[in-house]
């Protein structure tokens, strides 16, 4: 039997990488989701096409392949990324494509009445979106955003493909060195679950904040 505290430290280092990827990937996904989601309903047709191509491409191909391309193929085009950056880029763009449809759907589900009131009050298109439509659409997006963030957390395990030492990778190292499968994998099971709970709790708290006063009919 080896020194378990040393092995645990190894797994915790991996957990840090996983957390980093999740936070940075989610941030990128959020930006991509709003850009593409708003792009899908933009008045300019080329913008809509661009957003559609992005969404369909990233939803239609596997994250595994996307990661491989970002890390191993982009350098041929002169773009070399660190493994962490490559991981964040692939995960963020992949999950962002799913979340973009959530953004679009939530915006379109704000009642037409609300748009008409903003026109009657002579708000500009930007003001309509910022002050009336998005504040009502955001609470509708949040539950699915929570799902997306947890999906992203679990997808981080693929990054070992490009030599990133995330939590799952470290658990395999520990397993190889100690011969024990149960202890490292039980540990990361608990850690993944704990991280997912943090996301869930955070999103719920945010949801409560944003829907304050919105109870009852619109």
């Amino acid at each position, binding site marked *: 039997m080896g020194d378990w505290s040393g092995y645990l430290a190894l797994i915790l280092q991996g957990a840090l990488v996983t957390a980093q990827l999740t936070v940075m990937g989610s941030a990128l996904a959020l930006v991509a989701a709003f850009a593409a989601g708003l792009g899908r309903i933009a008045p300019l047709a080329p913008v809509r096409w661009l957003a559609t191509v992005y969404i369909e491409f990233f939803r239609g191909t596997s994250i595994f392949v996307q990661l491989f391309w970002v890390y191993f193929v982009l350098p041929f085009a002169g773009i070399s990324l660190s493994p962490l950056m490559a991981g964040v880029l692939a995960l963020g763009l992949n999950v962002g494509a799913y979340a973009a449809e959530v953004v679009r759907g939530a915006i379109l589900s704000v009642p037409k*009445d*609300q748009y*008409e*009131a903003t*026109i*009657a*009050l*002579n*708000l*500009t*298109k930007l*003001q309509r979106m910022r*002050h*009336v439509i998005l*504040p*009502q659409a955001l609470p509708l997006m949040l539950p699915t955003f929570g799902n997306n963030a947890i999906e992203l957390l679990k997808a981080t395990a693929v990054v070992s493909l490009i030599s990133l030492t995330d939590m799952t990778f470290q658990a395999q190292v520990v397993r190889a060195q100690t011969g024990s499968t149960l202890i490292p994998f039980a540990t990361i099971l608990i850690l993944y679950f704990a991280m997912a709970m943090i996301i869930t709790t955070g999103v719920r708290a945010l949801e409560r904040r944003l829907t304050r*006063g*919105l*109870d*009852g*009919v*619109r």
Partner: protein
Amino acid sequence: MTAPIIRIDRLDKVFGTLKVLDGLSFDVMPGEKLALIGPSGSGKTTILRILMTLETISGGHIEVCGEQLYHMRRGDRELPADEAHLHHMRSHIGMVFQHFNLFPHKSVLDNITLAPVLTKGEPKAKAEARARELLEMVGLSDKAGAMPSQLSGGQKQRVAIARALALQPRIMLFDEVTSALDPELVEEVLLVMKRLAAETDMTMLLVTHEMGFAHEFADRVLFFDKGRIVEQGPPDQIFRNPTQERTQTFLRKIIAAGHRV
């Protein structure tokens, strides 16, 4: 002689194959209170929605405050209005909706101050002071901090009226503003509108099924059917001595349904 504030000239509106407005022409004088009545589907609400630029037109011209609403002059050519022109034109017009359309995520006060602050660049304090005056006028001084979901239908509609007034439009459009209210809440909204009509020189266009109110409120009544004006005149004439068969039939049905005239 003063010029009309609204000039509608051979206006057409088509939804698919349905002709909602058919070569409609009429003028509205500044300060005039106009009631638009008629069976549902007669096009009266569509006229208000077109004036508020919530619908496009299929043909004809509309002039508001001396300028074309849906057309712009560029040299000798007349072009369809762009968003900037519509934005400019909308500053003359306000609208109150059947379903209030308050912003549910904003307090009563913020509902009223949002547009003056954003579109006119009014300082927040000034906009709030004016909003409180307006709330007092509609009898809701104590509701400034409330959320719309905490209000009754009648209170919501009075807030919506205050919100539209905050922009000080020259023309106000009221689209069936009491139709969605419980009967006991209709009166409080009508009272506010009566006072408004008496105290301001705003031009008002009212689409309503409340014939008694139209009678009392309006300087002129337009009876619509199938996208055309069938008959128009002072309320006494339209409600007491309508000359057209269709007007008579419509009013008979309304009275049979229990509405006061």
